[in-house]
């Protein structure tokens, strides 16, 4: 068995048994090779079913909001990106970190089942194992081995935080990534498009939207008790299939995570119609970084969120005569 999975099961057993936590949030393996789904367990006998593999893509931190309401102490497994979301939820007062024990999982990247399918590797596939960048496809016929990141989710290729920024127990060695980071190439690409082309691009993207709100539901930071788009009284919700409604939803959704988005890319991953939502979020992150200094949210919970603070000499695009701030 995978070394980390062994460690995971041990720590879950240990902390449940010694009463450090009441429940554990982790993943179990489903019927399919790509199916690793979130579970809440409180029975030490179930700890043997916990799993860590390249499909544990679901961020468990958002589940804490509901689970913590039961007044329990919770042990939770968090990857790098998950831990950023965890911190942002702490900043947002959504969870009480005192009652959470974090098991950190350095993450080499998660595998996109679609990419496996496109490569035709899914036929007869029983299991996929990953150690660092070595990926082993196990089928009835035998074993195929690949080295590299060609099966990683796109969002994982842009990962800026493979290692958890907060944890009580770290379950494996830190992942080191030496790839040269490109500065928001996806955003720059859109910024370079002519205005009309940009409008057409986004209108086309938004018009695909079926208002399923999966992007919002998966987003670890879209955690409002009642989302403004579900609140009739707020006067902004409309499920009408009109371009302007889609535009409104997507612009405001992106704006609502401004300064809080941890760039985990889950919104785009779950979008059933493939709207590149992260490109809206990342535009705002890029602007915040450029204008107000690097904001790595989530790593420093004492820091004021960029929209919760200001500097007297902030960059002022609305005043030609004085332009200060960090450019």
């Amino acid at each position, binding site marked *: 068995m995978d070394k980390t999975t062994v460690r995971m099961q041990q720590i879950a057993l240990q902390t449940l048994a010694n009463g450090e936590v009441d429940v554990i949030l982790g993943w179990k393996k489903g019927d399919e090779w790509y199916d690793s789904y979130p579970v809440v367990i409180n029975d030490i006998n179930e700890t043997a079913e916990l799993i860590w593999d390249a499909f544990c893509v679901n961020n468990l931190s958002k589940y804490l909001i509901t689970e913590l309401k*039961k007044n329990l102490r919770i042990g939770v497994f968090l990857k790098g990106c998950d831990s950023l979301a965890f911190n942002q939820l702490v900043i*947002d007062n959504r969870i009480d970190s005192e009652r959470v024990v974090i098991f950190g999982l350095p993450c080499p990247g998660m595998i996109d089942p679609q990419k496996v399918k496109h490569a035709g590797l899914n036929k007869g596939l029983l299991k996929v194992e990953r150690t660092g960048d070595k990926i082993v496809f196990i089928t009835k016929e035998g074993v195929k081995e690949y080295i590299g990141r060609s099966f990683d989710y796109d969002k994982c290729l842009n990962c800026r935080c493979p290692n958890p920024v907060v944890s009580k127990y770290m379950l494996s060695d830190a992942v080191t990534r030496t790839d040269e980071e490109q500065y928001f190439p996806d955003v720059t690409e859109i910024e370079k498009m002519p205005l009309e082309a940009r409008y057409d691009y986004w209108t086309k993207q938004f018009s695909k939207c079926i208002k399923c709100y999966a992007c919002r539901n998966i987003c670890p930071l879209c955690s*409002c008790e009642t989302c403004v788009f579900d*609140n009739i009284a*707020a006067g902004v919700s409309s499920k009408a299939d009109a371009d302007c409604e889609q535009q409104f939803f997507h612009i405001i959704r992106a704006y609502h995570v401004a300064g809080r988005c941890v760039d985990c890319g889950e919104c785009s991953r779950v979008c059933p119609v493939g709207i590149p939502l992260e490109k809206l979020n990342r535009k705002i992150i890029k602007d915040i970084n450029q204008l107000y200094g690097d904001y790595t949210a989530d790593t420093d919970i004492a820091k004021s969120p960029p929209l919760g603070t200001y500097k007297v000499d902030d960059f002022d695009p609305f005043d030609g005569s004085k332009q200060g701030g960090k450019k």
Partner: protein
Amino acid sequence: MPRIGAFVCWCGTNIAGTVDIEQVVQAVSEMSGIVYVKDYQYMCSEVGQNLVKTAIKEWQLERVIIASCSPRMHENTFRKAAKAAGLNPYLVEVANIREHCSWVHKNKEEATKKAIALIRAAVAKASLNTELIAKEIDVENRALVIGGGIAGIQTALDIAEAGYQVDVIEKSPSIGGKMAQIDKTFPTLDCSACILTPKMVDVASHPNINLYTYSEIESVNGFVGNFEVTIKQKARSVNLEKCTGCGICTEKCPSRKSKSEFDEGLRTRGAIYTPFPQAVPNVPVIDREHCLKFNTGKCGICEKLCPAGAIEFGQEDVLVTKKYGAVVVATGFDIIDLDKFGEYQYQNHPDVLTSLEFERLTNAAGPTAGKFIRPSNNKRPEKVVFIQCVGSRDVSSRGKSYCSKICCMYTAKQAMLIKDKYPDIEVYVFYIDVRTPGKNFDEFQRRAVEEYGVNYIKGMVGKIFPAGDKLIVHGVDSFTGDTLKIEADMVVLAAAAQAKPDAEVLGRKLAISTDTNNFFTEAHPKLRPVETHSAGIYLAGACQGPKDIPETVAQAGAAAAKVIGLLSKRKLVSNPCVSVVNEDLCNGCLSCLKICPYDAIAAKELATNNHGITSKRIVAKVNEALCQGCGGCTVACRPGAIDLKGFTNKQITAEVDALCH
């Protein structure tokens, strides 16, 4: 849909000249909710107002639209009229069809169309208006003054004289502050103690003033009119009531190692001490760090000798919580540490002094009994060099970028005093600029030069080298470009004034802000110089920025006047257009709290029941007494849980929709 009445004003020809009133009346009468429309030449006149009042009653109007001049002009007039007719004043909306329409547009057709649109927006908003009631808050009619220097003393006296109770908190064992340390005051050269000590006595004896010396602010809660302040009275180890101030204990105390704070370390004091002879209260305090009894358990001489039995080694810090209607911060300033200014040899040479040390040295009640001598050899100096702007107007990290404001004048004063007593002493002043704005200030400084022959040299001192018993001052005269070497016997440094090191901590307790230099920030640099952003908290003296005594006293008086104005109201009326939280929608993220300029939002814990499990939930709570109604929180709130009364999300959206009709 409420019953709405609309009143269209001609404003003579001011509106009617450009806007077709008849057409407007016709269009308005067709708007939904409108049951009554009336136009009149001057709606703001008494006749006009009566039209409104009568119509409210006769037509049972539930909302009133006034289409007239700017609401900044007459909104209040019409609100009052509505109130007189029994309608809540906040059910009135004004459509600005003069300043924003008839006066800026020439084309009658366009202006008429726009006037109709503006009225439509007002109708849309008004139909969503709700009755708003200004709340009344009780005012606790006692004031708290933090700091017992000249600023705090003056503020307390002024408030007490007006008949209100004032408590003064002073951190050190006696009130008096920096002014008590000063020898003479500019520009009149009267003795500081002579003008200050009578005021100190007044404070102590005033029936309306209650002193808390050797005390600090522990915590502050509440809001304007209702502050709840916990004061920590540090253990003095001497009973304030029993002590007669005879002074035997301070005389006989065998510990003599501590440096006198009041004398800027130029002499030592006992472990039990009164800071200075005129101290108020004239009751000593035991410095437990240096007291033999506290350190070794042996001694207790003071206790044995005290004829009043006032020594109480067992005293402990006491916390007192009291309510106040207003708070004045008058915590004063400090001078900077000079450890980063090695070139001036301050740390190494006893004859290099700060200006404040110089004040003690020349003071008749000071360590030398006023004899002007060099601390190193007790001989009278022959050459004295003053250096101004030590750390002031210094943009490097070791200094302060601002001008300390008082140094030019006190340096001139000190130089003049030397020359006055000892005309044979040579006095030099190095300066960047001489800044003497103020009544009789420039004349004063010129006298130092012209009458007393003080040598002013524009230039900075590069370094001071001790040589034998002399201090060689290397400077540059920037007028001539000459390098100067002055063999001085004494150097006096005008060290920059700086905010108290704990200003930020106190600011946090009071929820008032400090600027980049840690001075407290006034509410408006020009128009509200003694107020802070927190209602009911005021500033006096150098805690707001460097100030001389006249300015400090003036500001203290101003702060006192503000306090008196506040306390004289038994009740405060709050602005009803404040934010309100829908607790069901609130996530408790407190984004609103972070941006509120008035600290009007706090976290509130709610117990919630979820399928039989009770858990706690945080929500935001608006303190209506503190909220000023800017509405910034409403935008920070993603789920729209916080809204602003009088400018709700729905009202503004309705206005947008109506304008886009």
